[in-house]
Every structure is written in C-alpha cells, then in structure tokens.
C-alpha cells in the first residue's frame, strides 16, 4: 500500500494505492494521525484503492468522525468493489462518497 498526501492550506487530498485490510490499516491509521493535524477538509482519493476490509472501514470511520468535528471528509473515485463494501456495511450512509 502506498499513501500520498497533497496538502493545500487547510485542505488535503490523500491518495491510497492498494488494499486497506487488517495488515495495512494500522499503517494508514498511523499516517492519518500524524498528518491530518490542522487540516479541515480531507479528500480521500479511492481510485487506486482495491479493497477495504472491516479494519479499513474502522480507520475510515475514525477519520470521518474526526474530520466531521472540524470540516469534513469525503471519498472520491470509489471503485465498484469498494463501493459494494460501503453499501453492504452501510458506510455509504455515513461517509460522504462522491
């Protein structure tokens, strides 16, 4: 998994490349904890995100809650497979998916 973030003032775009599963989610969580301080609006680009497991969902939910307190978080370019996961788990109701 590769994570890249382009920061623009108080907003940022994070690109996640690969699988977000039990093995990789702690890394993503750590990355977010270290890098989203001071960011109000976070966009997660899911174009290269191939899979999200329940562990990945937890990290996304965590980030969503944290960002909701300041500005907000949205997910863009969500693939069908990933979207299905969001649908099944109803994360699609909670997260801002565009």
């Amino acid at each position, binding site marked *: 998994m590769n994570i890249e973030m382009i920061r623009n003032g108080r907003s940022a775009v994070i690109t996640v490349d690969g699988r977000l599963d039990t093995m990789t989610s702690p890394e993503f969580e750590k990355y977010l904890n270290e890098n989203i301080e001071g960011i109000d609006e976070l966009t997660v680009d899911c174009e290269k995100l191939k899979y999200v497991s*329940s562990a990945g969902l937890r990290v996304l939910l965590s980030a969503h809650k944290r960002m909701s307190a300041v500005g907000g978080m949205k997910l863009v370019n969500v693939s069908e497979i990933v979207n299905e*996961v969001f649908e099944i*788990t109803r994360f699609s*109701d909670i997260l801002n998916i565009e």
Partner: protein
Amino acid sequence: MKKILGITFGGLQKKAVILVVIVMLLSAAMFVAVTAYQNNTLVKVVAETRTEQQKAISESSDATMRKVVENSLVSSTALQANLADNDFAEIIGWTRTLQTMAQGVLENKGSLSQIPVGLPDPALDGVSSAYVLCEEGVDPSRSEYLGYIAHLSTPMIAMHGNSDKIDSCYIGLCDGTDLCVDEKSAGKLDESGRPIPFPVRERPWYVGAMERGDLYFTGITVDAFTHELLITCAAPVTADGEAVGVVGIDVILDGVSDFIANSAEGNKAYVVNDRGEVILGPDKGGVFEINVQSEAADLRESGNAELASFVRKALEEPTGLVTVTIRGKAYYMVGTPMPTVGWAVLNVVDKERTEQAEKLLLAEYDRINDEASESFRRETAKTNRFGIILLFGAFVIGLAGALFAVNRMVKPIRQMTESIVECGRSGKPFEMQDRFRTNDEIEVLAESFDDLFRKIERYIRDITDITAEKERISTELSLATRIQADMLPNIFPAFPDRDEFDIYATMDPAKEVGGDFYDFFLIDDDHLGVVIADVSGKGIPAALFMMGSKILVQNYAMTGLSPARVLEKVNDQICANNREQMFVTVWLGILELSTGKLTCANAGHEYPVLKTPGGRFELYRDKHGFVIGGMENMRYAEYEITLAPGAKLFLYTDGVPEATDTEGALFGTERMLEALNAGSDDPPMEILRKVRAGVDGFVGEAEQFDDLTMVCLAYLGKGGA
C-alpha cells in the same frame, strides 16, 4: 606451538621474534657496512694524505734546500773567487814588479856594473838567498845579462821574505842562466856539492811566457828539484825590443787558497784556470783531479756537456746554482770567475747530501705515518671486535628481550583465547580477569569480550524470557481459541430433539482467535435466534469485542425484542463505551419455527443467501443498516422472509467472498453461489464442507487473511422433512 623454558614459540610470538631478528640483522648489516666503509675511506684518506704530504714535503724541501744551497753557495763561491783572485792578483803584482825591475835593470845596464852571483850555498838553506842556476854546460860568468840582473838579488830576497805566498822567485835568462831566490838552496846541489843543472829555457813557465810574450800562469807543474806540484806566474823580460828572459814566481798553493784545502766532503771548491784545467782542489782522482799541465784535462771540452757548459760559463760570469749530473749523480754547482787571472772558482755540492735532511724528514714522517696507520689498524680491529661482540650481545639481549616482551604481550592473548575457547566449550561466560588488564588493546579486547559475553548472556536470558512469554501467550491463546470456540454452539446436531430445522455452523479464525462469530439459540419453544457477525479487525482485540457483542446480542434477543430493536439496543450499548471505535457487522434473524416466518435485521453485514425449496441459492439483497458500534442512535429496519419447508438459509462473513488467491483475485459471491448450488440439496453440514472446499481450492497456497465463518440453516417445517 612448541614450548621451551616456559616460552611458547609459534603464532604471534614467532612472527614478532622473526620481525625482531630481521630488524636486528638489518641493523647489524648496516653497522658492518658503515664500519667497513668508514675504515676503507679512512685508510684511503690516510694513504692519499701520506702521498700528498710526502710529495709536498719533497717538493718544498727540494726547493728550500736548493734555495739554501744556492744562497750559501753562490755567496761563498763569489767570496772565494774574490779571495783567490786577490791572492793571485798579489802574485801577479809581484811578478809585474819583478818584470819591471828586471827590464829597468837591463834597459839601464849601461849605467850599471855587472856583479857576480854565487852558486847555491847549502849553509843558507832555510833562509832566503839568491844564487844562480844554469843549464847543463852553461857558464854563468859568460852571461851577458846575469851580472846586471844580479842587482835584483836584494829586492828579490825582500820580496820573497815579504810574501808568504811566494815559494821562490827567479829570473831565467835566454843564455840558460837563472837568478833564483828561495830558502831551498841545499836542494839545488847534488851529493857532491855541485849545482844540479837546471834546464831554464825548457821550463813550462819560461816557454809559456816566452810564447805568450806577456804574463803567463803555468798549469800545475812539477818542481824541478823538489818534485812538488806548483804553479808559476811568469812574465817575459825584454831588452832592446828583444826577449831576453822570463821572471817567474812560484806560488805556494797551500798558502793561496785555504778554503780549497779546507773544503770538505759534500762541498768542495776548485779553481779552474783559463785553460779549463783544475789547478786547485781537494780531489784525488775523478773529474776534478789535479794533474800536471801536460796531463790535465780541459773541462771546457769535457765529454759531459753539462759540465763543459758549466765550466765555460763559470770562466766568463757567475753561473748561479746549476745542477750537473756526473756519472749518474746529481751535483749542485756554482762557478764564479776570478777576473784578474781569468780563472774561476767552482763549488760543488753533492745533491744527495742536501737531500739528506729531506730524506730524514720523509723517513721520520713515514715512520710516524706507519705508526699512526698501524695504530689505527690496531684500534680499528679492536673496535670491530668490540663492535661485533657488542652486536652479538645486543642481538642476544634483543632476542631475549623480544621473546620476553612478546611472550608477555602474547600471553594474555593466548590466555584469553584459551579462556574464550573454554567458554565456548563449557557455555560459561567469559569474565574479565586481572591478568588481562595490560593497559593496551588486549585489555580493550578483553573488556569487549567481557561486554559481548554479558550482552549475549542477557540476550539469551531475554530470548528465554521472550520465548517463555511467547509460550505462555501461545498457551493462553490456544486456551482462548478453545474458549472462543466453546462460547459458540459447536455441538452438532445442536438440537437433536427438534426436527423442524437443521443447522450447522463453522468458524475458522485467521489467527488463533477471531473477530467473527455465529450464534443460534432458542428464544422460546417456537423461536430460533440466528446470528452471524464480523468485528472489525482480528486477533485478541476483535475476539474480546466479539465476546461482548455476542453476549449483548443474545441477551437482548432473549428478552423477546424484535431483531431491529435488539440491534439498536446493542449499538447504543456498545457506542456508549467504545473509545477504540471498534465496530461489528451483525445479521440477526429470528425464525418462527411453527410458521417459517423469519424476521431479520442487518447491521452492515453481507447479504444472506436464500434457497427456496426446489430452487437455487441466491443472494437476498436485504435492507441494510449501519454497522454496530459506528454511530449512536442508529435505527435499523426489519424485513420478513417466509421460509417454506425445504428452504435453506446460508449466512457468511466477508472471509468467504473475499478469500484471495495467490494472484490477488477475490473468491467472490458468484463462486460462493456456485459452490452452494453444487450440492444445494445436501444437508447443511455437507453444504458448508463444499463451500469450504471451494474456497480452499480457490485460495490454494495463499495465506488466509480473514476469519472464515459460515452458518447454514435448513427449515424443514412442522413435523420435519
């Protein structure tokens, strides 16, 4: 490694000793080379210096001696020439006087009377007396001039008495008579007292003076009576323009030149007359031998060109110092002319004699040099011997010292090596000891080893502890696995006394404990609760969260609440205290066994799979709610499905469709449905086994990432199938 006298040879020791030996041999070789070079150089320098000094001494000595000889010889020769010339000038003076007197008498004979002259009177022998000598057969009384000449008897006796150089003086006349004055009258008579005839006109002085017509010195002649060698100075007497006689004076050579008689070996003086004959000199024999005039050699015409040239020059001018070689021997010669008589005084010095001082000096110098050289050679030999002994001593001491030092150096290393080898064998740690405290790298090395062994020991202890801890955790985990498994209904058939349904379930955690769970329980006699759930994450945190979730779901379900209400209650309960933001997807269904009515609620879980009797397993796309534990106050929708007898319900966690093969492909719901439909009429246990086999076949060697949990319920209806 050998051990001799407690010192080990070999290893580092050997190398160090070899190094020391090489260094020492090199220094020894260098010492020997330098010494030899110095000696050679010194010897050479001494020899060269010697030659040069000898040459210098020789040259300077030669020049100096020549100078000294020249100075003294030139001046003394000049002096001698002067003296001799004076002497002979005096003789000449007397001769001229006598000549003048004789001529005066003869020119005035007219006014003079003839007086008789007596024969030699032996009684007057020893005093000056005048007498007549005659040639054989000549009668003096008949002489034309003798009577007049006789007037000169008295002045002649006076002259003879006045000069110590005059041996005799006389006037020889052309008539064969001779008026003679000397002190040897007795010698002129024979045994019988008759006068011995005297060949006046044959005497060399008479002949010479007559021939020359002027003053004439004879060479060396033999006295007619005494047979002694003498020189006569003669001068002709003329009367009326005619030569009538000769005056002569015999010169006492002893009295003339004492310096010649006194000239000693090495520095001899000679007088050479104008005919190149030696007339005075100390030699008997040799080039400068004095001979009577008839036999005397003319040195000017000597076969020795050097000598001839020298003599010729000496008769004309002072020669300065000339080196003349006679019969292979070098002589210094100086000649100075005697201007009055036209002779020359020669001084001859044996050059060898003048060189004697130089030779002595050189000999002395050689002796000193030889002594010094010998002494130097002796000292050098001694020094060399001493140097070799010193070198040998240094070599032995150095070797012993090196052995000792290296042994001291190597000993701790060896002991340390032994110690470490022993440690390796026994497993005991290496310990720092005082003998390794050498204040150098060895101590550092020993300390490092000590430190290393301590660290290894600690590391081993840590590993042991960790392994023990891991073992403990593993034991606990396997225990937890069993507890977790035991928490779930796992005895099948689960309800042997109920024939309305058949249920079978499996849970395979990816790790020892999982976050998935299934559950089924009879709420009352007619209602069966079925649960399948998936906690976010895996392992112990998921397992703990799962335990709580399972109990909460069952507890609320047992109160008779509808599935949606149960999920809402559980959600609120979990959200109230979920700092870790864990969540769980739950599908909960309550089956009314009597009617087959299944009331369900889904909190974010996978779609259930349903099979109608005679139909195929298909996904049932139900109404979903959000996961439990994600947000507070969530509301969940319920839906009802009526199961006809023979219908089957398959529940699963995402571990099934998301099982991944080595290529990263997902198993997917399609393959899952295929696996289900492959034996859709089989009993639940067989169905689950087939799905599992399908998943395993798909995944192959890939590692199982997710928990794999499945439940299959077969509704058989009232009275069973």
